[in-house]
Structure formats: structure tokens, C-alpha cells
């Protein structure tokens, strides 16, 4: 789907959802037709994440990690898959 055609649904609340993973639940609320999201599914190429919806996703991450994420220290690649998101923002040894 083109970036230009995709319209995000109303902003979902990151309350505990069906998967028990708040980040996954947020993304599935945006794209419920996916059903499940593989850890290596490309969230950017498949337009699950896009520029217009990014800041809301950022706030979900910040709320869940309890830390502000400085964007000069990350790149779009850090958000490409669930595996990378977990490694970058949730693993114990990440900076």
C-alpha cells in the first residue's frame, strides 16, 4: 500500500491487549488485518509505521520504556522490525 494512501485508524490506546505485548498491540490496532506480526516483518516497507504515525508510536515506546528517546541517537532502521525495536529499546543492555 502506498504511503500516500494509507490512513491510520483512530489513535489506539496502548492498554494491555490480546497479545499482552503493548507495542504489538499498538501496531495491530493500526493494522488489524495483519492478525499477527512476525518479529522480522518489515514494518516500514509494509507501511505499518510511516512518517505521519511515527510520533504516536514513539510516545508508546517512551511510555513503555519510561525514557525519552532522543531521535538524534536512532535511525529508521531501529524501527524496521519488532526484533530490532525490542533489541534497541527494551533489551537490558541497550543504552
Amino acid at each position, binding site marked *: 500500500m*502506498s504511503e500516500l494512501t494509507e490512513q491510520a485508524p483512530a489513535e489506539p490506546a496502548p492498554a494491555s491487549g490480546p497479545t499482552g505485548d503493548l507495542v504489538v498491540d499498538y501496531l495491530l490496532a493500526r493494522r488489524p488485518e495483519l492478525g499477527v506480526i512476525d518479529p522480522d516483518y518489515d514494518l*516500514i*516497507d509494509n507501511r505499518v509505521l510511516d512518517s*505521519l504515525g*511515527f*510520533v504516536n508510536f514513539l510516545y508508546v515506546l517512551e511510555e513503555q520504556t519510561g525514557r525519552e528517546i532522543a531521535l538524534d541517537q536512532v535511525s529508521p532502521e531501529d524501527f524496521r522490525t519488532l526484533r530490532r525495536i525490542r533489541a534497541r529499546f527494551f533489551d537490558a543492555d541497550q543504552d
Partner: protein
Amino acid sequence: MTDTLTSLDNAPKATPSASASAHAYLAALPDILGGDERFKAILDRLTAMSERDYYDPYKLFVWPESLPQDAWWMSPELMSVHGTEVGATLDEAQLRALSKWESVNFYSLNVHGIRELLTSIVARIHMPGFEVASEYFHHIIGEENDHMWFFARFCLLYAGKVYPDRSLAFAGPGIPEADTFLLFARLLIFEELVDVFNQRMGDDDRLAPTIRHINSVHHQDESRHIAFGRQIVALLHRDLRTRLSAEQLAELETYLKAYMRSSVESLCNPSAFRDAGIPEPFAVRRAVLADPAFDAYAARILKRSTSHMVSEGIFTHDPNKNDTNERTPSS
């Protein structure tokens, strides 16, 4: 303006046919912009007005050491919580405190938005296709640099910080011929949105003179930039109507409407709630955005911009009215 107002990127993944279309479009740009006599005349007039109204921003403003902390820093009806259930739970002291931090967020968005604007204009000035606009681009660059300076100075002097840019641009499939149009359309939306605030706050007696002054000066300058933006966006879209399918034009409309909405949402920043001492800032932001009063707020702020897009045929439909006009190919 960022957070979302600036960060958007229509960077295409170029296929051979898309590249060919993009090259053909760039080759046609001198005729699209340079071939319109009315556009040239408007640019000449705007250039003359910029020269006539030139001022030294470094000497123009009075910067008191501090501003009253318990006063309104932003017109309350322009605050994101206005009319919402969240807003109703806050007492006036809390609202006034929030008005300070929402105003700092607003000026911070301006700072980041102007950075993108300057980057975009500098990338095009004296480049093929933009010859007709280069003279006026010099004025825009100078004036926008001044604006960025006084907005940043306000934030640093009275809040000790500029809120960081929270946007990230993702490349993706797009419509290469529309890149230039989308750039100027986003900038125009940014300027029109900001101007709604500047116009109101520049004339609001509840606000400190310094606040009123920076808003009124910005409003004066932006009226010229908006006039330019409206012309170039309309011109570029008229040309796109001869190049793109109805489906592609509809995609542009959908995208710009989503951009408008995300731009208004960027005015509601959890950091402002946190700095104002309001607990659970992320949950508060979600509650504000989900409140029907926020939809009304967005419609009010975007009203002028949306009406212009409809009147120029860029939007076939004003979401706040029942005036759908079916788009036909090359209409």
C-alpha cells in the same frame, strides 16, 4: 514545523518508469513556474513588500528577564485541551501553567519547521526550474532565519529549552512527480496553521507584550509567505492534474489531510503536560486526542487552510462539510 509538521518525506523508491516520470517533471518545471505571468507578477510584488517591510529582528523586540509565571502565555482557546474533558478537570492555575508549556511547544515546532523550510528552499534556490522564484527565495530565507531566531530565543530565555524534534522521515513508495508539490503544500499547511495562532495571540490583551509582539511580527511576515505558498501550490497542482490519474490525485488529497491532522496533534505534547505538573502525560494526551472537542479544535484551526485547498481543487471534499465533488481524470 515538526513533531509531524515538518518531517514528512515522500522519498520514492524509484522504479525505471517512476524515474522517467520524475525526470520529465523536472524538465518541465521551468515552464510550469516560469511560464505563468501572474505568478511572476506576484513574486515581484512580494519581493517589493519584503524590501519595504525589512526590519532588524535583533533590535526590534524587548526581552524582559522573565515573564509572569502565573499569567496566560497562550490564548486559552488555542490550547489543545480547550473544551475537552481533560481541560475541565484542570483549574485555572493549572491551565495557565500548561499555557506556558504549550506555547513553548508551539514555538519549538516553529523552530523545527523553519529548519525544514530553510533546508528545502536552500536546496532549490538558483537550481534549474526555480529561476523565477530565486529572488524571492532570498527574502524567504532571510525572514525565516529571523523567525527561527526569535522563536528559539523566546524558548531558551523563558523556558530554558527548545522541545526536541520528534519526527522521523521514512522513505517509501510515492508519486515522484508530486514531490515538489507535496513539499510546498506541507510548508503552506505549516504556515497557515501557525498563522492562526499568530493572528490570535498577536492581538490578545491577556498575553504579555513580548508574546504579542513576536506573534504579530510573525503574522505580518507570514502573510507574504502564505501568499507565495498559495500561488505555487495551486500552480503545481494545476499542472499535476494534467499528469496524474484521478486515483493518484486522490492519494495526494488523502495524504495531505492526514498530514493536517497529525500537524494539529503535534500541538498536544506529553512533555508540555509533564512540565506543567500534570500527571500521566501520555494518558492525558491520548484522552485529549480522543475527545470530540479536539476534532472541533482541529477543524477550527485547519478551517482556512482546508477551504483554500477546496477552492483550488486540491481537495475535492471538505471533511467538515457535505460538499463532495467527484474528481475526474485531468479535471
